[in-house]
């Protein structure tokens, strides 16, 4: 079966599901309990730990460095280095976050209007955790996961599982309609595509790629020259034989957990991989501008880093599979543990990546005016620096104190109020009171896709969505 046939069949199946109500695995007759606010949701986890001060706070080097170095050149040196997300002027001096020689050239914003003006910004949110993995798990599961360990799958169901369980498994809830894209396989990121809760788990999990690995040097070496078996004549027979072997093993042993991609979906995933391997990296990244005349310059800071690369591949996944839900993890900012300059460059690139993605959505016939995008860091970073300094003599920051729980959330798309800025109502001591919680993101996605009540009934997630506090 080729892609066109697969899409045709999928479309027929979707049409059939409208005519004939589908009985979900959960036993309910119809897929959704509520109306959808949009057909697609994109969640961008600007992860790696982003300090409120340098991102939405636009404090650049003033707070983080002048306070501790007392370098007079940094006095009052504030400015916005995330122009695709937030409104504000760029810093006037000491530009290191851009591209080209020593990062002196800011990357031109893609969006004519920052997302802040196109949607709603929850300026002060709380992560409930100062850890990367727990922070990501909380955003995806809607649960504080107080007993969650590292290097283990989330203890409660993820939004991927809710979507696949409560939406029509033959169309919006099909396996290839739910994706998780990581920029790395480090920090246990691949474990986040489903949780451990009974009655959910792998069979409702998201498909996952870490494109910089899957389609990187090693992926190309071990996967690109895959033999092109015929989906029916070859794989059909091999699956028959495999099924016989599995039936024999079932009598005495166990069974592997599977994501539940149908043979057609598996074939389609392989065809997508082939497409990525057939295209060279430069072609896939063709719309990312690079500074010219930088070849051989050892001080050149390229636009494309691991985050940008993963995100551009994510747009390829979106174009090919047209997912109902796709979540992306970008974590370049984690370099802040030892290198503040690199962290600023990563923030600027995460902003560029978000702009690239929103621009892609607004120019895609399937996603335009039909997609809500949510952007949020998984956690912040400390109020005070550690002892490490980078080449600019700037201090680095870890994440463990109250400031590391400070985040923000940006949301834009149909049915989302535009140009709305929700500020903190005040301070509790010296700590701003949050207006939103990262755990509310799960129910927000559920509400957008019309399965809010199902997720509330499941009883695992924060039972308030971001729409509830607008």
């Amino acid at each position: 079966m080729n892609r066109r046939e697969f899409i045709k069949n999928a479309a027929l199946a979707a049409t059939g599901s409208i005519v004939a109500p589908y009985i979900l695995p959960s036993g309910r007759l119809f897929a959704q309990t509520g109306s959808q606010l949009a057909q697609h949701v994109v969640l961008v986890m600007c992860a790696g730990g982003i300090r409120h001060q340098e991102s939405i706070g636009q404090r650049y080097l003033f707070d983080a460095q002048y306070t501790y170095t007392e370098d007079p050149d940094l006095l009052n040196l504030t400015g916005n280095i995330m122009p695709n997300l937030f409104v504000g002027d760029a810093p006037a001096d000491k530009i290191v976050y851009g591209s080209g020689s020593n990062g002196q050239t800011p990357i031109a914003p893609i969006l004519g209007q920052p997302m802040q003006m196109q949607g709603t910004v929850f300026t002060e949110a709380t992560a409930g955790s100062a850890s990367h993995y727990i922070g990501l798990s909380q955003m995806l599961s809607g649960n504080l996961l107080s007993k969650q360990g590292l290097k283990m799958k989330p203890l409660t169901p993820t939004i991927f599982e809710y979507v696949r369980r409560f939406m029509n498994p033959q169309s919006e809830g099909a396996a290839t309609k739910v994706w998780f894209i990581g920029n790395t396989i480090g920090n246990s990121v691949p474990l986040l595509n489903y949780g451990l809760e009974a009655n959910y788990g792998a069979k409702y999990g998201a498909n996952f790629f870490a494109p910089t690995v899957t389609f990187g040097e090693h992926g190309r070496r071990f996967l690109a020259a895959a033999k092109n078996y015929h989906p029916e004549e070859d794989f059909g027979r091999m699956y028959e034989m495999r099924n016989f072997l599995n039936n024999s093993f079932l009598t005495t042993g166990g069974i592997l957990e599977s994501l539940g991609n149908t043979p057609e979906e598996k074939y389609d995933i392989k065809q997508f991989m082939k497409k990525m391997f057939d295209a060279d990296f430069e072609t896939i990244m063709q719309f990312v501008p690079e500074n010219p005349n930088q070849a051989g310059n050892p001080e050149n800071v390229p636009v494309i880093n691991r985050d940008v690369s993963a995100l551009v591949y994510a747009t390829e996944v979106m174009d090919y599979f047209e997912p109902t839900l796709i979540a992306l993890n970008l974590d370049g900012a984690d370099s802040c543990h030892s290198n503040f300059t690199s962290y600023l460059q990563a923030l600027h690139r995460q902003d560029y990546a978000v702009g690239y993605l929103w621009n892609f959505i607004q120019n895609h016939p399937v996603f335009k005016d039909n997609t809500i995008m949510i952007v949020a860091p998984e956690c912040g970073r400390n109020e005070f620096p550690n002892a490490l300094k980078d080449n600019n003599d700037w201090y680095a920051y870890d994440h463990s104190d109250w400031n590391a729980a400070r985040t923000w959330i940006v949301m834009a798309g149909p049915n989302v109020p535009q140009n709305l800025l929700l500020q903190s109502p005040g301070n509790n001591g010296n700590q701003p009171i949050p207006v939103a919680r990262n755990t509310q993101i799960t129910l927000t996605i559920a509400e957008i896709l019309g399965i809010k009540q199902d997720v509330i009934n499941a009883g695992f997630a924060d039972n308030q969505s971001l729409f509830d506090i607008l």
Partner: protein
Amino acid sequence: MKHTAFLLLLVLLLGITSCKKEYIYRYGVDDLTATNNSAQKGKLKTPEQYIAILHINLYNIPMSSNDMYRLGQVYQSIGDKEVAQEQILSNFMNDDNPDSYAHQKGYVVVKPTNAQMRSNIEDFITDTYNRFYLRYPTQAELEWWRQYLNAHTNVTPEMVFFSFAISNEYQYY
């Protein structure tokens, strides 16, 4: 006199019973192939174990630790492990493609020809069970394979190997 005879008899009896010929016992071990019963396979292979064992099963050559580490990373980067295994296998089997890992390493999948497989299906299936599952097939399994391969003449040894390598039992040890 009586006492002397009794003492002589006693000495003689002691001599007979105490001086016994010493035998040397030599124990041998019969050749026996140790195989697993599928019921005993309850531990899931790690990605690295799966890859390492697959490599040896196909090429009869161990994979280098560097390659195993790198392929382990690639394996982790794909969410659907069935897709990951099928892609890796499809590449491993493609040993005559100059771009494939196997070709570049000079590895060839050790497999009989189609004619060899069909000339003695029972031996081929028994060998394949031993190779991939470390056990003998049951009579029922042998019979199923005999019927299946006779009914499907387009099934090749490569396809049989593929089906074993993606089966559930192969995921366990």
